Structure formats: structure tokens, C-alpha cells
């Protein structure tokens, strides 16, 4: 009699009870089932929206990351140029200090002719994997729009309407209920499919970001070292100039 709402077999419980009670219970359980499936369907839709949003945010973050990588690369180039400039100024100082020092320069090796990177902004090849992941994720923009909660009021009202229908038409046979249920199941399945593909895209994005970040990490380390040596050089050059 006191079977829990989540009974294993709601219809089996009815056999023990009287007809009226049984019918009542049956209706109640059916309503329960419908309600829960509707709730789950909504839940899946919301989760799907969440997923799309995450994807969007991830794409934006990775774009920023790429731009930062470019900036870092430019900084590294400038540091290299500064290094060369410092070497040149060192020679100038030598020639200024004494006439003989300047002559000595003549016999020293010529300054390294290594021209730095071409002056145009060089190509910054962001990790290609990240790029592709971003491309595929960007295509989901439309999906994001339609799954955004603010834009989906219409659908929700439809669902509520159909649910109200099923609740009121209690006397109908089981067939329409099955339809609703099946519709819910379909919806949930669709949403789950979309979620899985969305998750795979997110995974790719994450992996791409991982490699990108690793590269930038290395670059940062190199940059730090170079800047430190550069700093020391600048300080010593400055001192020497003052002593002139």
C-alpha cells in the first residue's frame, strides 16, 4: 500500500489495491513519470546551454591567449635587437675612450652581421591544433544562440502546454501519454548527443590550449633569461658611458 513513488513497477503495485485506489495510484504515478521526464528534459536543455556557453568562453580565452603569445614574441625580438645595439655601443665607447682603442677595434672581429628578424611583424603560428579547435567551436555560435535561455521562452511554453494537456486528460488511454513520454525521451536523447559532441569539441579546445600554454611557457622562460642578461649589460654600458 505504501509503495514509494519511485517504485520498481508502479503497475504491479496496483494489483493489490481496490479498483478506485488502483486507478488513482496509477494516474498519480503516471503524472510523476511525466513530470520527472519533463524536468529531466529541461535539465538537459539547460546543461546543453551551459556547454555552449563554456565553449564560447573557451574560444574567447584562447583567442586572447594567442594574442598574448604574439606580444611575447614581439617582446623577444626587441630584446634581441637591444642586445645587438648594446654590442655596437660598446664598440663606440671603445673608440671614444682612446685613439688606440679605436684602432684596436679595427683588428677585432667585425660585429656580427646577423640581421635580426625582418622588421615586418613575423608570422606567429599559433599552435595549429588550437586554431582548428577554435574554428570548429566558432561554428557553434548559432547553436549557442538558440540554446541561450533568453531566446528559448517559446519552446518552454510549448512544453508546459503539452504537459498540462496530459494532466487534464486523465481519462484518455495510455497512448497519448506514451507519446509525450517518447517525445521527452527523444528530446533527452538529442540533447545528450549534442552534449557529447560539444564535450568532444571542448576537449579538443582544452588540449590545444594545453600545447599553446606549454609553448608560451617556454618562451617566457627564454625571455626572462634574455632580459636579465640584457639588464646587466645595460647597467654596465651606462656606467662606462658615464666614466667617459
Amino acid at each position, binding site marked *: 500500500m505504501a509503495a514509494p513513488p*519511485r517504485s*520498481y*513497477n508502479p*503497475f504491479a503495485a496496483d494489483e493489490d489495491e481496490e479498483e478506485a485506489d488502483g486507478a488513482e495510484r496509477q494516474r498519480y504515478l503516471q503524472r510523476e*513519470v511525466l513530470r*520527472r521526464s519533463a524536468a*529531466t528534459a529541461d*535539465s538537459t536543455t539547460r*546543461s546543453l546551454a*551551459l*556547454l555552449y556557453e*563554456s565553449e564560447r*568562453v*573557451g574560444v574567447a*580565452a584562447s583567442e586572447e*591567449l594567442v594574442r*598574448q603569445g604574439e*606580444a611575447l614574441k*614581439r*617582446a623577444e625580438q*626587441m630584446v634581441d*635587437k*637591444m642586445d645587438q*645595439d*648594446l654590442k*655596437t*655601443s660598446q*664598440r*663606440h*665607447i671603445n*673608440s*671614444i675612450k682612446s*685613439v688606440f682603442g*679605436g684602432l684596436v677595434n*679595427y683588428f677585432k672581429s667585425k*660585429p656580427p*652581421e646577423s*640581421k635580426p628578424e625582418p622588421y615586418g611583424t613575423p608570422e606567429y603560428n599559433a599552435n595549429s*591544433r588550437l*586554431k*582548428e579547435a577554435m*574554428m*570548429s567551436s566558432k561554428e557553434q555560435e548559432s547553436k549557442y544562440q538558440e540554446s541561450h535561455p533568453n531566446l528559448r521562452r517559446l519552446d518552454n511554453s510549448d512544453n508546459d502546454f503539452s504537459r498540462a494537456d496530459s494532466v487534464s486528460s486523465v481519462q484518455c488511454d495510455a497512448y497519448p501519454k506514451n507519446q509525450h513520454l517518447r517525445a521527452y*525521451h527523444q528530446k*533527452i*536523447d538529442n540533447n*545528450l548527443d549534442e*552534449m*557529447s559532441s560539444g*564535450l*568532444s*569539441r*571542448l*576537449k*579538443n579546445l*582544452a*588540449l590545444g*590550449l594545453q600545447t599553446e600554454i606549454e609553448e608560451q611557457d617556454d618562451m617566457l622562460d627564454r625571455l626572462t633569461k634574455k632580459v636579465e642578461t640584457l639588464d646587466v649589460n*645595460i647597467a654596465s654600458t651606462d656606467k662606462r*658611458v658615464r666614466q667617459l
Partner: protein
Amino acid sequence: MAAPLLSLSFPEKLRKGCGQGRGVGPEPGVRAWRPPEHPTYASGWAGVGSRAGGGGRVIRKHTDIRTSRRNHSPKFQPGISTLVKVNWTRIVLKAVFRMSEDNEKVTLRRIEPAIQKFIKVAIPTDLERLRKHQINIEKYQRCRLWDRLHEEHINAGRTVQQLRANMREMEKLCLRVRQEDIPILQRMINPVKEEASFAIKEFLQLHSESAEELKRQLEGQEDTSLTRSATVGGGKTLCNTEGKDGSQSLIQMYSPLPEIPQDENAAESWENLEEDLIQLNQLVTEFSLLVSSQQEKIDRIEAHVNSAAVNVEEGTKNLGKAAKYKLAALPVAGAVIGGVVGGPVGLLAGFKVAGIAAALGGGILGFTGGKLIQRRKQKMIEQFSSSCPELSRQTAKKSS
């Protein structure tokens, strides 16, 4: 309606299966990365009875690596530490694999540690877990604890998928080995492979039996199970495939999805999934916040470096100019010295005119000598400043 992930179709033989495990998880567009990586992750992710629960876990694991975040304990299965270890093993293997991608074929020695780890750690762990699952399934079947049975099925399905993924990874690694080392490798791997395939076969038989049992139990109920439509469809297609292949090629069979007898389990799985998704969303948002906060620092870095570069360049130019100005003194100095020397010499000689001429001559000599030296030095300075085009342009203007 099997999800795209589950529509894997691996070729029959184990060996062939490795090189062609493409198109598993990611969309066709995303092909940039080496293909071998995907199947493992995707299958480790796809190998679940309830769909995307594992996916959240794998993604979480990845972001784990990057952001070193501590997650709350996942409720999926016991022995999560071994799971983590196995995953890390796989990641290490991937690193080795990435290393070895530079050369086409590598010596056995390079891959040996990875393979050893496979043989000694990953696969035995999976086999052990599989055996435990088997025991549990039998126990629950006897005691008729359907929900626990169902859980065990799910977990076992996952384990089988992982095991398969490991085998595939190993096979892929084997492909990389040079021709001459292959027999040795075969000898090392074959026992493990046989054991694994035997265990999988046994398990699948047991599994299908008990799944049938489950199905019969719940035949009576029609509409109460939430995901019945999906699982029935999935189970049917899978059972058909199984029937066709028999027990020939293990990789081709995939464990039939257990049917979910009650609403509760589906709801619970779904709730887990939802939680994971929410966490994932939070994680992504936090990541983007981090990135944008670092943006400012990077901007400052670039600005500073820029101004430093400009300053250094100017300083160098000025130094060059200073050096040149200094050189201008040379001819004058030469002239003076020449005059000073020549004058007294001439005067000593006694002839006034000769003395003056000698003085003048000496002056001219000194001047030309100094001029020569100046020219040479200017050339040198121009060479120094060759890296600064503006400077050389200036000097060109001056000399013209």
C-alpha cells in the same frame, strides 16, 4: 541511436586496429593533432554505459594537469587512485609517443620502458579490476540486487573500454619500432595480449548472459524506465553486432549497454553529469578570467620592452656621433704636430723660408695623415652601425 563516439568500427585484427583509429571523438574538422591521441581519450571517455559521465572526468583530468586544481572525489568507482595511475601511465606513453614521432622508426630501447610499464602496470591493473567486476556481477546476480548489478555492468563496461584502449595504445607504440626489433617486442607483448583478450572474451560472455537475465526481469515494465528507448536501441544494435561476429575479433565487439531498470539510476547518473558540467563551466570561466588578468601584465611588459629598445637605439646612435666628432680632432691635431715639428727643424736648418716651408709641409703631411686615419675610422663606425639603417643613412648624407 548510438552516439557518434560509439559508432567506432575498428578493423578486425588488433594490429591493423592501431593505425586507423581515426575519426573517433573529434569532428572531422579537427584533424590537426596526431590521430593516435584521440582514440585513447575519446574511448576512455566513451567507454561508459551512461553517456558523458566519463567525458567530464577526462576533461577534468586534463584541466587538472594544467590548472592543478583539486577536484572533489568523483563518485564513479572505487580504486580511483589506480584509475588515475593508469591514466597517467597513458599520458606518459603519449609523451613518449610524441617524442618518438620525430624519427619514423625507433629502437626498441627507447620504447622499452613505456612498454614495460604497460605490461607490468596498466594492463594487469585493468585485468584485475575486470576480474573483480566479474565476481561482483555473479554475486549480485545470485542475490538479485538489480541496481548494484547494473552499476557493476556500467563499471565493467568502462574497464573493458579502458583495457581495449590500453591495448590499442600499446599496439600503436609497437608499430613505431624498427623492423629488426619487432620479434623481440612480440615475445614481450604476446603473453600479456593473450591474457587480456582471453579475459575480455570471458567477461563479455558472462556479461551478455547477465544482461539477458536483467532484460527478462524487467520485460513487464513498459514506460517507467527513463532511458529505455536509448538503451534498448543501443542494446539491440549491439546485440546484433555481437551475434554476427561471434567471438572472433574482440575489438569489434563492444559490450552491450546494460538496460537501466529504474528511473533512479538514470536520474542519478544524470545528476552526476549535470554537476560535472556545471563544474566544467566554472572551470572554463575561471580560466578565461585568468587569461584576461594576465593580459594587462603582458601589455605592460611589451610597453616597457618597447621603450627600452627605443632608448637603447638612441643611445647607440648618440655614441656613434660622439665617436665621429672625436675623430674630427685628428686632422687638426696632425696639422698642429706637423707644424710644431717642422718649424723648429726648418729654423734650425737656418733658412727662414725653408723653415716656413718645412713647417707648412709638415703641417700638410700631418693633416693628410690624420685625415686618412679619420676616414678609416669612419668606415669602421659605419660598419658598426650597419644594423641601424637610419644611422647609416645619416652618415651617407653627411659624407656626400
